[in-house]
């Protein structure tokens, strides 16, 4: 289990996150909904070690404390992040991107099988393995990013707005592949703007507003909550 307790983050005078607590089980999808600027990206960055939390926070993976560890150690502890904007190595080939996913020593064993798995989930990546990543389309780049994260043998996968900039069709594909990944036993923490689609595949959801968690619950319940609809679904569906 990935567990976050009392997490606060401060940028200068600006409080980005305030006393956040949440958890993620293996094999489940939890989605974090919130407006731009609510602190979603900061939350993922903090869990993955790119941003340091205020004292008092505790982040743990299967009871192993990873608070304050450098990012590369946290990957080795089993948490992978697909950052906003994908963060692939553009000048490198698809194969090299995937290979680097398995750079950490946690991922050396079974690297070949995982590559096979990734190629099963994203057959395109097998076809394009020697292509330079930068020259691929947005959706394909997203596949590279997720594939690379999977290569690191994560127990928990975090994705920051993976559907950003994808056409509706592509993002539907993407969400399908996330359910496929969940089946392999990986826990997925998803940050999304696309509330409808993400709630549809998620087990649980957190509502984040101005750095605070203002609500949480089963995804299905939240999807039908009028207040949630109004705030995150544009309310259009209510009409």
């Amino acid at each position, binding site marked *: 289990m990935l567990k976050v307790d009392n997490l606060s983050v401060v940028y*200068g*005078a*600006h409080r980005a996150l305030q006393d956040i607590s949440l958890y993620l089980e293996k094999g489940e999808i939890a989605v974090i909904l919130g*407006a*731009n*600027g*609510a602190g979603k990206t900061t939350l993922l960055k903090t869990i993955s070690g790119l941003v340091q939390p205020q004292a008092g926070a505790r982040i743990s993976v299967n009871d192993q404390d990873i608070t304050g560890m450098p990012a590369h150690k946290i990957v080795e502890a089993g948490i992978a992040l697909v950052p906003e904007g994908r963060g692939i190595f553009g000048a490198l080939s698809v194969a090299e991107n995937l290979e680097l996913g398995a750079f950490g020593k946690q991922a050396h064993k079974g690297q070949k099988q995982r590559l096979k798995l990734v190629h099963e989930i994203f057959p395109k990546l097998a076809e394009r393995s020697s292509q330079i990543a930068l020259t691929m389309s*947005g959706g394909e780049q997203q596949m590279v990013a997720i594939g690379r994260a999977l290569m690191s043998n994560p127990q928990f996968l975090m994705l920051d*707005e993976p559907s*950003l*900039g*994808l*056409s*509706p*069709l592509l*993002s*539907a594909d993407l969400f399908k592949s996330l359910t496929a990944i969940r089946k392999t036993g990986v826990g997925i923490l998803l940050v999304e*703007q*696309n*509330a*409808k*689609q993400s709630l*549809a595949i998620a087990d649980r959801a957190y509502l984040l*507003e*101005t750095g605070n968690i203002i609500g949480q619950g089963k995804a299905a319940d939240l999807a039908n909550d009028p207040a949630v609809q*109004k*705030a995150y*679904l*544009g*309310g*259009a*569906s209510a*009409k």
Partner: protein
Amino acid sequence: MTQPILSVNKLTKNFGGLIAVNDISFQVKKGELMGLIGPNGSGKTTMLNLISGAFKPSTGQINLESTDITNQAAHMIARHGVARTFQLVRILPSLTALQNVIAGCVYGHVKLWGEDAQQKAEALLHRVGLAEHINTPTDSLTYIDQKRLELARALAANPRLLLLDEWLAGLNPSELNIGIQLISDLRDEGTSIIMVEHVMDAIRQLCDHCVVMSSGIKIADGSVDDVLSDPEVIRAYLGDEHA
């Protein structure tokens, strides 16, 4: 009836292979508040950057009333009377709040200096609710106050067209009400505004008309109610199974 304050005509912007804004046309009438909405990554901010001159369009034309501003540099467009805020607040950290606002009225559309600039800036700080922060170093302002300050700086130029890029994002509900009220007042005074926004409440309450973008294409343009009930818009926003 009268000439629109802004007309965008067949505007396209390429970044390498990526088409961020694809053949978009729309108009903003004088005194109108137009909402520019769409999913993240749909090209809204790029649109604002094209209008304000941060980027040069690949093809197409932008007119500010009768002036062609298509390929003008950002500072020239600012001098024609276009002012903006930024998606991620950009205040001038080494200046005081007052100096930040003065910066808005020295070089832009209406050029003020000295006493006049000072008075105007003080008035604007009052207006956005920062009266007590005139001499506060800006980096110790809270997020909402920084947003207010940025708005005051944009207003200091007496803009003919004001561009707000997710100005309401990240505000808590009570702040949001204050923010919406402030924009509403501006509209009532006759300022022409384009706002990129995700907060649907605000869009509903404030906008006279909306343009919706998705993947760089304009998918709807009309009154707020019409646009938000457009099936294509719902699909773009909410995913296809909904349509």
